[in-house]
């Protein structure tokens, strides 16, 4: 038994060292990249791009399922985006509420026979509508396909531009977000095949007419902790992975892809739980198998604000689903691991996801079990345990404060001192008991996946009201 504990101790220690070193390296890379990006922005002229003939047409695909509360505001917001050639395709995915009627009233929709080539599989289409107010708005009304991926595929079939941008109907894009996310593509259209933008937490902020009026930190602790998580994930994780061309996830709430490539991989996988991650993984596979010289970028300044769960139940469901999605993508792509053909994706990005994302809750649980077992057997060094716990706590806080620092020196969206103090204090408070709860939710996700429970459970949301605070 002691031998087993010893083995477990060693394994967990090296796992912990590996995990911390990787996060530290990511933090350093991210800080360096963000500083360079900020300097670079000084010489950018987005105003010129806004009218540039070099900007390729983009189709925005907005899947909407029971979005009656927010659809008017969301679409109006998209129609006002700064971009020279923009087509908006809203897919009403079998909504049982008034989503279609809301759009019909607001945008004076009329049924049309627009071009729709059912190249990518999706549920049957009921009708296509074009707005009389805005010529670039097309609404695809389809039967419920049971997944967001299915709705996006319908939008993909109706898209007529060389690039698609997928946006959630409950998200708010900053006016120049599309211009900013297109910059890497405009700079190198042959190599850049996809770009991800940053997702920020909308809860607590003031919105007026679909536009973000004032950024504020949410009131509830659970929401503030998610703000820190999003900052950490995007401003540190994605920034660093993107820098090494190893970005594996482009958030489903805001990302641009080359249309022909999305079609080439067969569109979004309708049954995928994490359809965004799945698509990027399949794109990497296809391009690496073709031996293509390509890049998938992350740009930290085009901001998309989205509502996050504000109650524990919804958050638990979301996190369990994310963990299921992770396994759902990693397992079919296990053949990519450590094969020279798949380059750094197979050697670094995927192993990191397996080790430090997928297995993390299992390892955490094993760690806790080891501590309990050692205590029961009387071999636990309390002194060392406390020291190690303190180190873990202090180090995890370094990473969290690092992400707040990133936000401070770059985009600085939280202007109130009060907000910054709260944000920093939650960097210290998130470790107990939120982290442990998070571990349980992720374990639940894994368990559900192994049991074959793939049901999509709805999350409670407020939606984008006309003047929500």
């Amino acid at each position, binding site marked *: 038994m002691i031998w087993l504990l010893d083995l477990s101790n060693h394994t967990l220690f090296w796992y912990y060292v590996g995990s911390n070193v990787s996060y530290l390296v990511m933090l350093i890379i991210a800080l360096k990249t963000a500083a*360079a990006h900020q*300097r*670079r922005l*000084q*010489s*950018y*002229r987005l105003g*010129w*791009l806004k009218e*540039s*003939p*070099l900007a390729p047409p983009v189709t925005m695909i907005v899947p909407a399922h029971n979005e009656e509360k927010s659809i008017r505001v969301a679409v109006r917001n998209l129609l006002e985006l700064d971009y020279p050639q923009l087509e908006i395709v809203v897919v009403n995915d079998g909504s049982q509420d008034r989503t279609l009627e809301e759009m019909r009233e607001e945008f004076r929709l009329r049924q*049309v*026979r*627009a*071009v*729709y*080539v*059912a*190249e990518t599989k999706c549920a049957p*289409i009921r009708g*296509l509508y*074009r707005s*009389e107010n805005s*010529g670039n708005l097309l609404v695809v009304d389809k039967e419920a396909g049971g997944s967001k991926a299915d709705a996006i595929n319908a939008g993909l079939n109706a898209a*007529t531009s*060389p690039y698609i941008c997928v946006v959630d109907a409950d998200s708010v894009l900053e006016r120049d977000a599309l211009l900013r996310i297109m*910059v890497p593509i*405009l*700079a*190198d*259209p042959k190599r850049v095949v996809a770009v991800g933008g940053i997702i920020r937490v909308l809860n607590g902020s003031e919105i007026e007419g679909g536009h973000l009026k004032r950024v504020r930190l949410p009131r509830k602790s659970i929401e503030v902790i998610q703000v820190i998580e999003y900052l950490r994930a995007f401003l540190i994780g994605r920034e660093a992975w993107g820098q090494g061309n190893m970005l594996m996830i482009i958030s489903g709430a805001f990302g641009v892809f080359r249309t*022909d490539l999305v*079609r080439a991989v067969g569109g979004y996988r309708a049954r995928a739980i994490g359809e965004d991650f799945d698509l990027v993984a399949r794109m990497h596979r296809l391009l690496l198998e073709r031996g293509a010289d390509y890049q998938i970028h992350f740009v930290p300044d085009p901001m998309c604000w989205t509502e996050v769960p504000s109650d524990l139940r919804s958050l638990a469901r979301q996190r369990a689903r994310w963990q299921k999605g992770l396994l759902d993508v990693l397992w079919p792509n296990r053949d990519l691991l450590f094969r020279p053909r798949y380059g750094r994706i197979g050697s670094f990005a995927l192993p990191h996801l397996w080790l430090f994302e997928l297995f993390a809750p299992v390892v955490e649980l094993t760690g806790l079990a080891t501590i309990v077992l050692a205590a029961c057997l009387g071999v636990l060094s309390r*002194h*060392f345990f406390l*020291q*190690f716990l*303190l*180190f873990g706590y*202090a*180090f995890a*806080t*370094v990473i969290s*404060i*690092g992400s*707040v*620092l990133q936000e*401070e*020196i770059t985009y600085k969206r939280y202007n109130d*001192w009060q907000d*910054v103090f709260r944000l*920093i204090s939650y960097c210290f408070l998130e470790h107990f008991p939120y982290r442990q709860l998070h571990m349980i939710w992720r374990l639940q996700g894994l368990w559900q996946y192994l049991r074959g429970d793939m049901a999509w459970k709805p999350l409670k949301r407020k939606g984008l009201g006309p003047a929500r605070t």
Partner: protein
Amino acid sequence: MESIFERLWRLGPAAFVVKAIVAAVVADGLLLGFILVRRTYRKRYFARRDKRVFELRQVWDDLISGKIPYDSWRQKAFDRRIVETIALDGLEAASAEESARLLKFLRNSGLIEKRIYEARTLKGWRRMRALVALGQTRAPEGIFAMSQALRDRDPEIRLAALRGLGRTAAPQAAEEILTWVGERGLCVPALPLQSALIQCCAERPKILIPYVRQAKGPLREALGRVLGEVATPSIGPDLLQFVGDDLDELRAASARAMSHSEPSLAFEVLHELVRDPIWFVRLRAIVSLGELDDARAVPDLLVGLTDSHRLVRLRAAEALVKTDAPIVPNFQKVVGTHDRYGLQAYLTAIENAGLQNHLEAELQAAVLGSQDEKESLLKILREGCLPSTEPDAPVISPTKSASLP
């Protein structure tokens, strides 16, 4: 007395962890301290700046006319930065007269000379900042300093210089850029290069031609794209040499440029290019045909309407709807192609243009060969499908993947 390090050493195996704790706690403290100090500093700085901006704004006219001696603010870096920022921001949105006044002020006060000096002598981000400011002035005397910066080792400096040169929108700047890319090749991303050249070559697009002819590989593509954007009727004959070029991008650029050429020349060339094996060359040719807005383009647009590529079909349909040719004969010709996808693209374009009722009324009023033909055309218009091929074809088309991109 025992030092802290000795005490740590005595802890034995736990010493490593204790050191790690100390390091992590110190890192936490430093990060926090940095955030708080930075915030405090910025708050004070911006308060002070706002106050000074307001004061300077009150005397702005006296300041730029020279009534207030330049030396009174030039010697203070804080004031100088504010005055320069206000003047440069003013230039962005100024009328021609106001621009001339501001530029005169920037010259007389020596701010331009200072920036030229900085752009030549400084290194790193300071040089970049000077280049950005110099570009904002659009002063021709800054062109040489910016062109020197194009040879900097740092790619960000090169980009700043390129963007600055682009802002001047002067053919002289275009010459400098073209000489540089001629020497070094494409050593910056294509977009900023193209943007800068489009602005600088708009006045004299002809200066591009010899460089496009000599350039190779990706640079040739990039320059070809610029040529396509800035071409004017005056360089139409020069473009003919690129119509049969091996490079797809250059053929596409020629096709794009043809929309600015004499129609008689353009139709002949575009007639060839709409049959090009590369889809985006065909697409450009179709778009150009549409921009010519001439009924003579209809036969070639019908070719585009039956293209295997969806985007080509869509653009051809839009162009057909836009042409000044009578709508009923056009519709008859579209139906005559017997292409379901072409027909659907055309009807979509008709609907998008809000012309469906107009076409229906025209069809009702038209004198056609027979009543049956009229009925058939009306039925096709209403149902959106060709009766002879698939009478019950649904509105939504099935997959045509074999011929699609």
